[in-house]
């Protein structure tokens, strides 16, 4: 192996400020998100739900980022693949399922939006939409307002590398740079904007380098290395709170699933390419790390899978049986009532 003693390996998460219990909690959240995502895909294929858009392959980075934030105070503006992120900041699998089934009790939208369009005031998850990148200036506005109010927190906004070509990304970064606002711009570079590969979206440039143009720090990090993502986001948060302004984090990850249930990804990439990335899956790597640390074993894995499956089963049944909104509810909440 790497020649390090168990203590030295343990040092890696402890050195970044994470306890053993926290890294185990991170791992459980990643696995739960993966099982939810796989079930959502099956439910769509079985005709039980209209649509699913996957976050598979990006869970390790999302959970690591969430754990590096203050989950009691910070504000979150996630994008549509961030199931693992929203689970890590307090959403439940049942709530995700209610959104997937488009049921009235869905806290994100009451069964109005596509799944993955998160929003929950209770958890300070700001409501999002489908035109990509529009949430970036919102995050800047949240940070500006928090500073005006004297509230110590950061606004965390995520998006894909596709959205990083939108004007709203650049306008938002520039605005935040001018005012040195406490924002973390978290770009989940999963290599594809639906079918268009990174080389045709951004060319040879690195998204992290765009931060230079706005006068703040940009960091590229391996999204399959949860501890490294944690460290980078934690440092970004410390800078933000210290008044040192925003950080752009570019997380190198890979979308293991097709864009959505309406996409055939083998039209534009090969099975071999996907398998190669699957072998580097951040969840697998994190499990290996925990095992090497002596914190995890096959028995615990089986128990976790059984427990997570039970949670997903219960949530599926609950959401399936839950009522839709009433027809007349269609007319409600256009304006304040």
């Amino acid at each position: 192996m790497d020649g390090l003693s168990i203590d030295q390996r343990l040092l890696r998460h402890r050195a970044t400020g994470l306890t053993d219990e926290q890294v185990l909690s991170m791992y459980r959240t990643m696995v739960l998100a993966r099982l939810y995502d796989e079930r959502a895909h099956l439910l769509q294929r079985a005709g039980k739900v209209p649509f699913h858009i996957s976050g598979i392959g990006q869970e390790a980075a999302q959970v690591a980022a969430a754990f590096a934030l203050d989950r009691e105070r910070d504000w979150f503006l996630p994008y549509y693949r961030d199931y693992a992120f929203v689970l890590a900041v307090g959403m439940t699998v049942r709530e995700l399922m209610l959104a997937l089934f488009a049921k009235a009790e869905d806290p994100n939208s009451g069964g109005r939006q596509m799944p993955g369009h998160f929003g929950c005031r209770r958890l300070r998850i700001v409501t999002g939409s489908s035109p990509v990148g529009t949430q970036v200036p919102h995050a800047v506005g949240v940070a500006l307002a928090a500073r005006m109010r004297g509230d110590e927190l950061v606004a965390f906004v995520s998006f894909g590398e596709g959205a990083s070509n939108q004007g709203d990304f650049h306008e938002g970064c520039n605005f935040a740079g001018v005012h040195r606002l406490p924002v973390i711009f978290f770009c989940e570079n999963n290599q594809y904007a639906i079918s268009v590969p990174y080389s045709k979206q951004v060319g040879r440039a690195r998204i992290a380098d765009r931060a230079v143009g706005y006068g703040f720090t940009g960091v590229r990090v391996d999204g399959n290395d949860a501890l490294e993502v944690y460290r980078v986001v934690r440092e970004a948060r410390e800078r933000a709170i210290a008044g040192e302004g925003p950080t752009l984090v570019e997380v190198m990850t890979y979308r293991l699933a097709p864009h959505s249930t309406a996409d055939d990804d083998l039209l534009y990439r090969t099975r071999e390419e996907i398998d190669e990335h699957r072998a580097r899956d951040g969840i697998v790597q994190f499990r290996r790390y925990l095992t090497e640390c002596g914190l995890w074993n096959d028995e615990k894995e089986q128990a976790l899978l059984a427990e997570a499956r039970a949670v997903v089963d219960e949530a599926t049944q609950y959401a399936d049986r839950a009522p839709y909104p009433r027809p007349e509810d269609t007319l409600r909440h256009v304006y304040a009532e």
Partner: protein
Amino acid sequence: MPVITYLEGIRSAMREEMERDPRVFVLGEDVGKGGVLNATKGLRDLFGEDRVLDTPLSESAIVGVAIGAAMYGLRPIAEMQFADFIFPAANQIISEAAKIRYRSNNDWSCPVVIRAPYGATGGGSLYHSQCPESVFFGTPGLKIVAPSTAFDAKGLLKAAVRDDDPVLYFEHKKCYLSVSDEVPDHDYEVPIGKADVKREGTDVTVITYGMTVHYALKAADVLAKEGVDVHVLDLRTLQPLDREAILEATAKTGKVLIVHEDNKTGGVGAEIAALIAEEAFDELDAPIRRLCPPDVPAVAINPVAESFFLLNPDKVADAIRDLARY
């Protein structure tokens, strides 16, 4: 009661709302120095540069940042320097602000005011003269106001700031200094959604808003001498339309002329005409008419094209006369 300009009505509404409520702040291009059209003049001295915030030249961010701040709990007033430059922010207004309450099933709201100085003053050409209200009209979730007097400008801006939903506030640039009227010293609001009869009459009803209200009133004065009694309804709010007031004004004369400076095709007037045709057909004694600039992209700078394109009291008077004779 003191007489103030339309522009002072807007300015004093912002000042008083900022004094009343620490959540209110203004952001936009050049607002610190007072704005290129002087609407925010003096506010930075009173409230500081954090609450009268100069922004980058970046309309989508001005509105997007305002939306974020509104969702956090503040009451931003975002200034578009000219309504002609609102289009980069159209996605933020239509896809975001208008839909935030609905898409979150009432979990979130977006109490933002977007001020947009619009309309031709002469010499402004294609990109300092437009009336883009029809682009946003018909977008559920937005409220749209367009006052014509200092009293309405002040009262509607206060109502907009206090409203819990996004309000697009169209202020006609030609009204800024050419329109002055009495405004009370005490605090008041003009309710959003309520039209106002600016002149009572029995022969022809003119339904209009913004600068053309004044053209209609001038035309009415001329026509009174000719024995034509004109009824003028000022919409004040474009969305939601005051349907009752429109139907009542229709019934008053049975002859309706709709006047606006925005293009004819797809303009607010088209919806008003449809509403009257659907709900008050029996009240009509003549076809509904519309008087608007022609369907060309926008007004040109040369004076010949300007006077051909733009409305004025004479053109309105001619259209009323014609309808009165029907």
